[in-house]
């Protein structure tokens, strides 16, 4: 990016400066991804980069500075707080409060039985109904959840994976009931099973049929809900499970490549699918490493889509992403400190050019967030957006010697992992990722990183304020949200009522259709939509899929 003779001069001056100031005596510093950080960066560190080729302008290849030409000057990121608890009524009320407070998109947290595709009256659901999110058994719950919320006015995100097809069908059915044309439905379904095997562990079906259903959703979604993100390829959970930033980036991009490869194998046109892909990253503590990660992610995906998969439409080269601040960095000790952590992480996400953001609440190391804590979290984003001046100009850290060097470094390290995974699949990313699941490659990589991090904390090499330094004796004074223990009973009663009132013959026919679709390797979405409209339960539908495809039990590796 600089003239060669200038670089030589700069290098000479740097050596003189280092010598004069005895710079080499200050010890070694590394990022959490084990990248050695120099005490200072200057133009000589990024002399190998070409501004137009490697950095460029927002909205243009390789999108290092952002996917949209105007970024936040055109439109701020979507403030999307993940929320849900109790019954559909409880969550509907919380959502209406958030929309009134200025939130611009909805994001649904489901309870564990729903996430795992179990009904609320399943013995395994005991104690978990409505606890960490809203309980959903049938379309009836969705009718209540979206009561008074017009689907043509909001976009809704659903964090759900094994039953993703069912939830997308339910949302479509609500849209049909409200008279909203399907091509107006906007939102995101997480639908990323591969990362469940690496990290998040919401596991029901084995890996291959899981990917098959994902591709079914792609195929159906492109035709039916063209404005809906049909997947959110997620690094968030990989990071929460303990990976480094580089691993988060590499494994997420690898998963993304695996899905695109599977779709192309099905005969889907990559340019038709690409606009409906989205990503989801974590924003952790190391400020610059996170910013560099987001920038590197965009650059890598643009190259992959254009050069590897041959996507022709520039729109297909975009990596659009949602960010959530890192839940695993929240401390139970001195909980108000978490507001500061979250603010720094949110800043990194904004400076990294995120399309939407969830900021965690300060009380989440203790319980689900209280209303006050959620409000502070949302206000954090609003203060960044409206008071700080940070969104005024696009990618303001571009050109920083350190940030550009680190962006490049992270990209290089991530490519190394991607090449390794591709080798495991003998040239196929899809097979490579499946192989890595089978051999425990991803789980081992992540567990080792988690153990290393914890060891550094234990040894005091990594400081966590209020935990291993600056600790105090304290009595907890924050109000904690308690989910009404009656929720489970009420939810089971509703499920019973729905089952008593529905047309059992229609349900049986629809479930038979679903079974036939799965057995004959047809797309399961049309049958699932029919099942949903007849008020079949999530447990019944997943039950059929389990019978056909079998279930998956993860090996217990420490």
């Amino acid at each position, binding site marked *: 990016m600089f003239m060669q003779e200038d670089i030589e001069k700069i290098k000479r001056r740097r050596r003189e400066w280092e010598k004069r100031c005895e710079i080499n005596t200050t010890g070694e510093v590394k990022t959490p991804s084990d990248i050695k950080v120099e005490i200072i960066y200057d133009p000589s560190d990024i002399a190998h980069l070409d501004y137009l080729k490697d950095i460029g302008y927002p909205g243009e290849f390789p999108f290092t500075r952002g996917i949209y030409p105007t970024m936040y000057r055109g439109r701020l990121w979507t403030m999307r707080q993940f929320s849900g608890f109790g019954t559909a009524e409880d969550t509907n009320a919380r959502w209406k409060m958030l929309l009134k407070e200025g939130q611009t998109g909805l994001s649904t947290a489901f309870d564990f039985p729903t996430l795992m595709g179990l009904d609320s009256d399943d013995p395994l659901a005991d104690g978990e109904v409505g606890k960490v999110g809203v309980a959903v058994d049938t379309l009836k719950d969705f009718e209540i959840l979206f009561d008074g919320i017009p689907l043509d006015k909001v976009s809704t995100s659903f964090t759900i994976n094994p039953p993703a097809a069912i939830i997308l069908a339910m949302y479509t059915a609500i849209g049909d009931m409200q008279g909203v044309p399907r091509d107006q439905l906007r939102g995101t379904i997480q639908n990323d099973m591969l990362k469940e095997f690496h990290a998040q*562990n919401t596991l029901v079906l084995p890996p291959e049929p899981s990917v098959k259903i994902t591709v079914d959703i792609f195929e159906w979604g492109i035709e039916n809900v063209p404005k809906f993100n049909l997947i959110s390829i997620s690094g968030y959970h990989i990071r929460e499970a303990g990976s480094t930033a580089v691993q988060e980036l590499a494994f997420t991009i690898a998963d993304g490549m695996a899905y695109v490869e599977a779709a192309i194998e099905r005969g889907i046109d990559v340019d038709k699918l690409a606009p409906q892909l989205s990503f989801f990253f974590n924003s952790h503590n190391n400020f610059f490493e996170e910013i560099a990660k987001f920038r590197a992610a965009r650059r890598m995906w643009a190259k992959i889509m254009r050069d590897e998969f041959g996507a022709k439409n520039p729109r297909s080269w975009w990596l659009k992403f949602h960010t959530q601040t890192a839940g695993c960095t929240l401390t139970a000790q001195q909980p108000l400190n978490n507001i500061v952590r979250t603010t720094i992480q949110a800043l990194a996400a904004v400076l990294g050019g995120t399309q939407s953001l969830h900021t965690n609440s300060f009380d989440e190391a203790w319980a689900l967030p209280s209303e006050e804590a959620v409000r502070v979290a949302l206000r954090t984003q609003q203060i960044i957006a409206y008071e700080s001046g940070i969104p005024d100009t696009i990618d303001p850290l571009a050109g920083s010697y350190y940030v550009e060097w680190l962006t490049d470094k992270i990209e290089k390290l991530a490519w190394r992992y991607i090449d390794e995974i591709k080798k495991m699949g003998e040239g196929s990313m899809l097979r490579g990722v499946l192989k890595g699941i089978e051999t425990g490659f991803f789980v081992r990589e992540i567990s080792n990183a988690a153990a290393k991090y914890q060891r550094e904390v234990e040894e005091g090499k990594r400081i966590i304020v209020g935990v291993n330094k600056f600790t105090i004796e304290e009595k907890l004074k924050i109000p904690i949200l308690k989910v009404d223990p009656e929720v489970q009973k009420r939810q089971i009663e509703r499920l019973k009522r729905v089952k008593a009132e529905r047309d059992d013959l229609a349900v049986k026919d629809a479930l038979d259709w679903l079974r036939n679709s799965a057995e004959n390797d047809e797309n399961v979405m049309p049958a699932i939509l029919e099942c949903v409209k007849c008020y079949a339960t999530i447990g019944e539908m997943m039950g059929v899929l389990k019978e056909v495809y079998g279930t998956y039990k993860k090996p217990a590796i420490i």
Partner: protein
Amino acid sequence: MKKIRVLVAKIGLDGHDRGAKVVARFLRDAGFEVIYTGLHRTPQEVAMAAIEEDVDVVGISLHSGAHMTLVPKVIKYIKEYGGNPDEMVIVVGGIIPEDDFEELMKMGVDGIFIPGTPIEEIIDFIKKKVAEKKKKTVA
């Protein structure tokens, strides 16, 4: 001296196993005999494993908010299957609101560890408690 045997259990439907696995690894490195159940275990399975493996310590990890339902069930089933939960050290870790501490202790839980607890503290606690319980059993 016989090594202290610890069962690390993930119970219920939540898949957050980072804490359980990191603790399991550190306990193993500290010289304990560690058995990890893997994910999504029922209280019955955990109770059965505790008895069959003849463990001194049962460590239960939950991030799902279901602790008030599932933890007492583990203790109940240990009794039902012929074990003596009072002779075992029962510890719980994860997202546990402070308001629930007292009731969990009443149910027979010996220690509760929230996020951010130094693992050294867990190791010391286990050693101390196991020694105490052994003494009581002998007496």
